């Protein structure tokens, strides 16, 4: 049974269209023009219990909007969505008990009170029993180092500390599914590592994760499945490894050539590119057209190789291409 199930999920925002300046504003009063903006455009989603899904795409692709639709914050314009058998926007409060949400760019803590007060308020909001609460705090303290943050006013926390406290707040009631919207944004490397470790821990507890991020390290460290969206539509949904296979067709071999004319291989192997200056050159090829072995043996016929190394496709390259708009939607799914 799917934990999250969405069919044709769509959200259209209506934005006022105003000409610049005061004149534009006045004109808008009389002649109202709106632009419909398709933030999420007919997305189908199925997430199974225990999965960790990376939800990526360029800015404005509709990631956060999807999360907000799943969290019951926004009402879909069209389509259906169910999270653990509940329609989030219809039965928002039941849904809220099932889920945990973290928005990396905002805090859900009470700004002018100590962290502890926020957490006890959440304890009461979720109606957690005192022993359960204490056990959870102990557990979260272990991984997030909560203890030292407890008496500090939220507005006095550093960004990294705030993120730790916010993670605790999102996970206090032990939700079955957790949405994390950019959980590592603005954090330094060591805090990032801590957060990722914590997320991996969560997975071993059986918690289902869905995280949007621009940080590719988050994806490779935590997730096995990746969904890429662009302009509100899904362009890829599958295992991380499949994505590399499908999109990362280009591979590179870096060679140190002792002698010979490696450029000559281009004549024998059409489609292969050779770049760089002797003695260090790079051969770029389509991994579905040639194997690395084939390339090496071709080079060996015309040159002598000192060192070489094969560059594995990184998801970074793939995602970067999506961001740059190089991957076409219909070319893939």
């Amino acid at each position: 049974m799917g934990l999250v199930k969405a069919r044709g999920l769509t959200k259209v925002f209506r934005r006022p269209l105003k000409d610049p300046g005061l004149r534009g504003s006045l004109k808008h009063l009389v002649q109202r023009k709106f632009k419909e903006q398709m933030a999420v455009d007919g997305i189908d989603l199925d997430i199974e219990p225990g999965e960790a899904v990376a939800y990526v795409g360029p800015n404005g692709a509709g990631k956060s909007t999807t999360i907000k639709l799943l969290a019951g914050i926004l009402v879909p314009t069209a389509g259906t969505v169910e999270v653990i058998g509940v329609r989030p926007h219809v039965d928002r409060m039941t849904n809220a008990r099932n889920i945990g949400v973290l928005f990396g760019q905002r805090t859900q803590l009470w700004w002018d009170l100590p962290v502890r007060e926020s957490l006890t308020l959440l304890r009461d909001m979720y109606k957690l029993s005192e022993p359960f609460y204490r056990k959870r705090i102990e557990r979260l303290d272990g991984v997030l180092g909560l203890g030292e943050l407890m008496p500090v006013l939220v507005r006095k926390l550093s960004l990294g500390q705030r993120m730790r406290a916010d993670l605790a707040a999102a996970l206090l009631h032990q939700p079955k599914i957790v949405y994390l919207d950019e959980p590592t944004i603005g954090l330094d490397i060591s805090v990032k590592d801590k957060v990722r470790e914590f997320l991996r821990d969560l997975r071993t507890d059986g918690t289902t994760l869905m995280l949007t991020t621009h940080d590719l390290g988050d994806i490779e460290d935590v997730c096995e499945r990746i969904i890429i969206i662009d302009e509100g539509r899904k362009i890829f949904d599958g295992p991380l490894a499949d994505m590399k296979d499908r999109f990362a067709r280009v591979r590179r071999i870096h060679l140190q050539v002792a002698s010979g004319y490696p450029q000559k291989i281009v004549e024998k192997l059409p489609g292969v590119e050779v770049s760089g200056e002797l003695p260090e050159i790079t051969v770029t090829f389509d991994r579905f057209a040639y194997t690395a072995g084939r390339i090496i043996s071709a080079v060996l016929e015309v040159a002598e190789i000192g060192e070489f190394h094969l560059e594995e496709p990184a998801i970074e390259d793939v995602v970067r291409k999506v961001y740059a708009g190089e991957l076409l939607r219909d070319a893939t799914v």
Partner: protein
Amino acid sequence: MRPYRSLFLMSLRRMLTYRLNALIGWLGGAAILISSLAVWNALLRNGDIGGYDWETMKGYLLIAWAMSAVGTSYGDWHMANRIRDGAVATDLTKPVDYQSARFAEQLGGLAFELVAIVVAALAVIVFTGGIPAPAGLGQGLLFALSFAMVVPLKFIIWYITTMVCFWTQNYLGVAWARDAVVWVFSGGLIPLSLMPSWLGSLAAALPFAGLAATPAALYLGQASGTEAWKLLAVQAFWLITLWLGARLLWRGALRALTVHGG
């Protein structure tokens, strides 16, 4: 109830954190009370106006001012800002009813407002030589009943106007307009009976009269018996209508909600 009790206590604690802020607000409120007392003192020196002598007017002004102080120290701007900057998104991920949660927060401020009201009443008594007592025990109880409705009624009027932020993204104009309308139509500016009769009757039928004119009339004994119950019924009618209406409006507001960025 547990979530709401906790929200109430939290808001109480926040009020303590911002006590200086609250104090300054009340000083401003006190200035309004003092100036309206001074104006009416001058006006009534040469005899009654519309059935109000100085003693009655003092009682009226104090009650109208006290009612206007209720439910103002916490709430609408806080909620408006959270809607405008999108922080409302995190409120919506909590398993609490939004309207009830905001009401609980508003009640947290009430404890402090009551203190301010008592202080102001004592000051008026000391400096102006007393105010009239309620016109009998029965009227006192009717007043208490009406006052108990002022608190949620005021909340719901503020809540509904704050919700406009979902559509306008601007609150200042809405707040000013509302405050002006409330000031005039609640009887906060002058008693409704001193208005032209058509305006007075109109005001009496609107929900705002329940914010000051009704409790004052009950306290001063201007309405008693059937008349008193009729006033209370109008007040209750508006309270219930607006409370339910706000829930309908809320559904529309969620459809209009746009949370920008993150």
